[in-house]
């Protein structure tokens, strides 16, 4: 990074953030039917019409040809171990179900890593839990006497699972870096908003950064930016949506702080919302209102309030 007077790593702890993603997954016919059949302790596969390939557990498409025309088959509960490993999740292996043309990855139970061998016979272990989903099949255990099974025609009688609820939480610890670090440190400790001068020296970049986005030239020295500004655009949010920080209605506005050349998006509030469209428009003058407890984030500014009697056109 370029040397910059007064720019130094500010040792802020990283910002923790979570992306919490809810899903309603659609398993489709092959997987949906297989999931439902597992509850009946039946293991289904697909036999693809053009390639003749058998894939267990069932898939909608042939892994080799992409063929989507298939018949379900009832697969045996026995097979051969083709590879294995042990991770923090436990023992896992690649099992080739008798009669299948591809392996399946599943848990290995009632055994230990040292006792496993490629080529050994295994048989299915079933769960008694009523809502185990795919884990109705708990896994496979070594079973030297497991008979060689055979793929049989599908006997029917299974209603496919249509939707699988799912949730994925992704956690992050974002580093601030020297520019955002100083910005948020100054906001927390002294209630100041700092930018860096534009490469041409006229006005300031907010948030501060090493390189001006437009000219790709190095930005200049630090400069304090005024806490008053002008609304350039605004929107009143009425919609409710996942991840929303406050109940609607509320106002988001693009605000050009005095002395800055870049816009800041923040809330304008503290006004009679029934008159929002009339009170907040391009040209409306606003001022930052700070929270009493500051943590070093843009949220330390609780909102922008109207500056009475001032308007800029």
């Amino acid at each position, binding site marked *: 990074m370029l040397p910059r007077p007064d720019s130094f790593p500010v040792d802020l702890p990283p910002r923790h953030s979570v992306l919490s993603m809810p899903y309603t997954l659609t398993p489709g016919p092959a997987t949906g039917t297989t999931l439902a059949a597992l509850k009946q302790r039946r293991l289904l596969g697909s036999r693809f019409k053009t390639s003749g390939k058998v894939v267990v557990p069932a898939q909608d498409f042939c892994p080799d040809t992409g063929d989507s025309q298939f018949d379900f088959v009832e697969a045996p509960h026995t097979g051969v171990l083709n590879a294995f*490993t042990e*991770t923090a999740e436990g023992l896992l292996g690649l099992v080739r179900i008798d009669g299948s043309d591809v392996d399946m990855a599943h848990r290995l139970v009632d055994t230990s890593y040292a006792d496993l061998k490629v080529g050994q016979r295994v048989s299915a272990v079933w769960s008694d839990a009523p809502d185990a989903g795919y884990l109705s099949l708990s896994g496979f255990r070594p079973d030297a006497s497991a008979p060689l099974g055979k793929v049989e025609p599908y006997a029917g009688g299974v209603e496919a699972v249509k939707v699988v609820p799912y949730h994925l939480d992704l956690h992050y610890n*974002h580093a601030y870096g020297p520019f955002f670090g100083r910005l948020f440190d100054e906001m927390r400790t002294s209630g100041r908003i700092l930018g860096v001068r534009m490469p041409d020296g006229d006005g300031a970049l907010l948030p501060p950064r090493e390189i001006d986005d437009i000219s790709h030239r190095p930005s200049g020295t630090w400069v304090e930016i005024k806490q008053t500004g002008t609304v350039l655009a605004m929107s009143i949010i009425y919609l409710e949506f996942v991840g929303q920080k406050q109940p609607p209605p509320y106002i988001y506005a693009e605000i050009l702080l005095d002395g800055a050349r870049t816009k800041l998006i923040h809330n304008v509030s503290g006004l009679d919302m029934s008159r929002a469209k009339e009170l907040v428009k391009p040209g409306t003058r606003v001022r930052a209102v700070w929270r009493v407890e500051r943590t070093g984030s843009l949220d330390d500014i609780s909102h922008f309030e109207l500056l009475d009697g001032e308007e800029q056109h």
Partner: protein
Amino acid sequence: MSFPGVVVLASAQTELRPAWHSAQHVDLISAVSTAVFQGTGLTLEDVDFVIDSGSDVLDGRSISNCGFLGAMGAHHKEESRVEEDGLWAAAYGAAKIAAGGASAGLIIAYSKPSESDPNLFYKSQVEPFYQRPVGFDHRAAMGMQAQRYLADHGTSVGALAELVVRRWQDAASRGRVAIDSVPDVAGVLASPNVAAPLRQLMMSRLVDGAVAVLLVSDEVALRCGRSAPRITGVGTSMDTHAFAARRAGRLEAAEVAARAAYRQAGWAHPAPSLAEVSGSSAVGELMVLEAAGLAAPGRGLDLLEHGSPVAVNRSGGALPADPIMATGLVRLAEAARQLSNPGRYGLAAPRSALVHGTGGVGMQSHCFMTLEV
């Protein structure tokens, strides 16, 4: 079907560190997007397009390249994002220049896996109905692949540990990698079990960093007065998503990708002076070398021996430093540096290099590039 003149003119790279706590993505990116022009005589104004490589999931924001455009120098330029290792971004850029539509492109790849849980990054790539519930993930895939490799070829975990030590030594002496101490064989074997038979240090170490590569046409390179390596072949291939349905004990997609690159380069018998390849594990690296035809199946370790015809991963490769999404582009930058400054890498007169990048759970996708001087 030779590849029309595309030259790897220059590169810039941050140090690769386990964690860049003092910098965010844009800080790392602007460091390399400015430094890459030094000494070339070119500026950003000469650049026709920017292609970048990174992961929204790792970055923790959707369409993360939009927030990094300014740092990349892509404002109002033609910009594309490749959600795959940076070597694919370079392949895309090389194709644009080879097609004659552009004469200079900036290729950027970056990564900060320290900011998230990379296991979740890989888990998000795994099929959610059959694979996630049983705990199958990238580590498990690498473990099963290694278990099969060792069983099929009689390779010992001790030999894998020796490979790891060599790679860390090379990274410490020649790579641009932050390394506190180089492990010894006993240390590798004593590191925690991650995916048996693989120990922690037999998996690639995830690091933060950014890299930029400037690709130009022959004509621009000539104007710059630089003799730099030319890209002579590119090949990519992707294996089936279901790890269990891939052919055990082989990286078939890597074989296909390498053959395609060789065909383009006119290499009937691949014998590059040097190779910079990526592997998510020690076994993964060996399997890539074997898939590329540089060693017979199960004989990848022979390339470590004195007198080996190919200098493999003089930078240390991906085992000591794997900035996911940037690893392959780092390999390209390293190979180009080694061809341009062979003395620094203990090489006499290298004429050609093989470069490799990989991506996905259990190394599903592969990209090869051939360089010649």
